[in-house]
């Protein structure tokens, strides 16, 4: 019976119910989005290493080095020499060393010079090698050829056979210098859901020797991506290279360095989360206000129900149940808000970093979020429920005669 009372009361106060549930939905959607993006981005970014254990670069910030070499963001902290590359390549702990050089872009899409081994020898995820789409192939050393990441190719509308002229610098300047060399796209990489998808890859010497670049730095590199024979071997390498205060920096392990970034911006997460919770509390307050404000109109109905034999706890339960039902409906609708918001945020993150979040993947907040919201609504419903509980039937239902 109590479900009937709840249903009919909600039907009777349909507009207030919908408005209140909508406010819960917005709050719930916001909280779910903040929470999912926060937890998933921290995990996905920390796990994004494109198959490498460490990065060697010029003396400077390890985080900047990782952002530049792995995430293809930020400027390079400086160059290292070909000799440095040879040195690291021959360290006993190093299994693979892939040099990269940056310095050019095409309309803001980063152009990175590297060697073919990146595509043929490196697994960007365990068991996953880079692959080019149908009709494509990897570039050949010495030729003006390019392989394009899937996301960049899609956004640029490039396919095999497309030609382009790189712009100088990492940041796109339409009035800036455009190199003379004309590159031809020979392959589009299959999606990897990593920052590699946002990069235009050309042969290493292309970046090094492009007209307009400093000929004295023609053999310089931006960084070396390193796979170790055993992950723990990085500790020794780390001590040898970073402990001596030389001109090089070894960023190892990559995941820990990225995690430090999230620690640095943890305050931002906390502010967002706080805002989401505040919105949640305000939304649950709206349940209280909505039901409480309608209590004058409901008082007579409640008195009639009591006169028909409904017990105090029944009307109390009906009011609390209505608040809970609004919470449940709002929380469920919140998933729709979340889906829209999260997909948008994920697309922005992908556009900016190449990292692909899966916001609809199961997250614990999917059960405790709605549960907390429903609980807050129940708390909001307690005040009007007590008012209903304490209602004087005789005084409310009819004038005493």
């Amino acid at each position, binding site marked *: 019976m109590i479900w009937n009372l709840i249903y009919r009361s909600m039907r009777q106060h349909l507009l207030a119910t919908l408005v209140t549930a909508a406010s819960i939905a917005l709050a719930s959607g916001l909280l779910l989005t903040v929470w999912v993006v926060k937890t998933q981005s921290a995990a996905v970014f920390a796990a994004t290493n494109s198959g490498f254990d460490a990065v060697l670069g010029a003396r400077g910030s390890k985080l900047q080095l990782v952002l530049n070499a792995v995430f293809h963001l930020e400027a390079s902290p400086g160059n290292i020499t070909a000799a440095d590359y040879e040195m690291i390549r021959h360290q006993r702990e190093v299994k693979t060393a892939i040099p990269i050089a940056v310095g050019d872009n095409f309309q803001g899409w980063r152009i990175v010079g590297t060697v073919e081994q990146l595509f043929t020898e490196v697994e960007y995820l365990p068991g996953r090698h880079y692959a080019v789409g149908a009709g494509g192939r990897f570039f050949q050393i010495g030729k003006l050829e390019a392989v394009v990441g899937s996301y960049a190719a899609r956004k640029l509308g490039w396919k095999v056979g497309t030609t382009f002229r790189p712009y100088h610098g990492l940041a796109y300047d339409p009035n800036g210098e455009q190199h003379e060399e004309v590159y031809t796209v020979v392959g589009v990489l299959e999606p990897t859901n990593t920052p590699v998808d946002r990069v235009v890859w050309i042969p290493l010497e292309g970046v090094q020797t492009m007209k307009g670049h400093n000929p004295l730095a023609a053999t310089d590199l931006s960084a070396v991506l390193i796979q170790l024979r055993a992950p723990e071997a990085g500790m020794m390498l780390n001590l040898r290279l970073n402990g001596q205060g030389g001109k090089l920096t070894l960023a190892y392990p990559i995941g820990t360095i990225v995690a430090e970034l999230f620690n640095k911006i943890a305050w931002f997460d906390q502010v967002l989360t706080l805002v989401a919770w505040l919105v949640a509390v305000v939304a649950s307050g709206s349940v209280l206000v909505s039901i409480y404000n309608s209590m004058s109109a409901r008082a007579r*109905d409640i008195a009639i129900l009591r*006169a*028909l034999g409904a017990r105090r706890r029944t009307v109390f339960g009906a009011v609390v149940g209505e608040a809970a039902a609004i919470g449940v409906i709002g929380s469920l609708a919140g998933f729709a808000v979340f889906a829209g918001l999260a997909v948008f945020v994920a697309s922005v993150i992908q556009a900016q970093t190449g990292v692909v979040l899966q916001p609809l993947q199961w997250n614990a907040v999917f059960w405790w979020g709605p549960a907390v919201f429903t609980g807050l609504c129940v708390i909001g419903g307690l005040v009007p429920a007590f008012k209903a509980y304490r209602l004087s039937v*005789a005084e409310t239902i009819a004038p005493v*005669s």
Partner: protein
Amino acid sequence: MPLLEIKNLVKAYARPGNAGVHRVVDVAGFTLAAGAQQALRGESGTGKTTFLNLIAGILAPDSGSILLGGRDLASLGEAGRDRLRAETIGYIFQTFNLLQGHTVLENVELGMAFGRGVDQARAIALLRRVGLGEKLGHYPRQLSTGQQQRVAVARALANQPQLVLADEPTGNLDRRNAREALHLIREVCAETGAALLLVSHDERVLAAFEHMQDFAAMNRALTEAAQ
């Protein structure tokens, strides 16, 4: 043994500002046999609604006893009185007191919801009996006042009560509707075997009853105040 037996029933309210108490009801004795139909005459302010609310268990008496079917309401807690009201009493109000957000059928179903449980077939049969079989899905605001009172009659009988209390049931109706409503109430109560206790100040209504008492004369709170 009568269905309803009242002895030394007293209900008083505290006056504002600690100015003592104001007795509203003080009835030495009253009985009603099962299936009987009894009218009580009472003008406004004589305490007749309080008297019915005490019998219905909506109010608890300060002293005295109300035996309904052998059970003393005065000895029951509020939850017990609620249950007894839900299972054995039907209440018809002057203002009908229908729930505006519920359909005609839902209003009648509410009359049985807190007692033996909803029996939709019985609710529909009752509504057909009071001539509203075609209005099941209507809302009270879509009905005339006479039709609304008929819904209230059907609701009062929905829980198969032993006793129907009617508080000025024709007070909001015009003469023709009042006559029809009264006839319907008495007829349906007789059909179902429910006793009827009706209070009214309308002499035309009171004249229809074989058994009628003057509540003002019964209520010692009034007679003593007058002396």
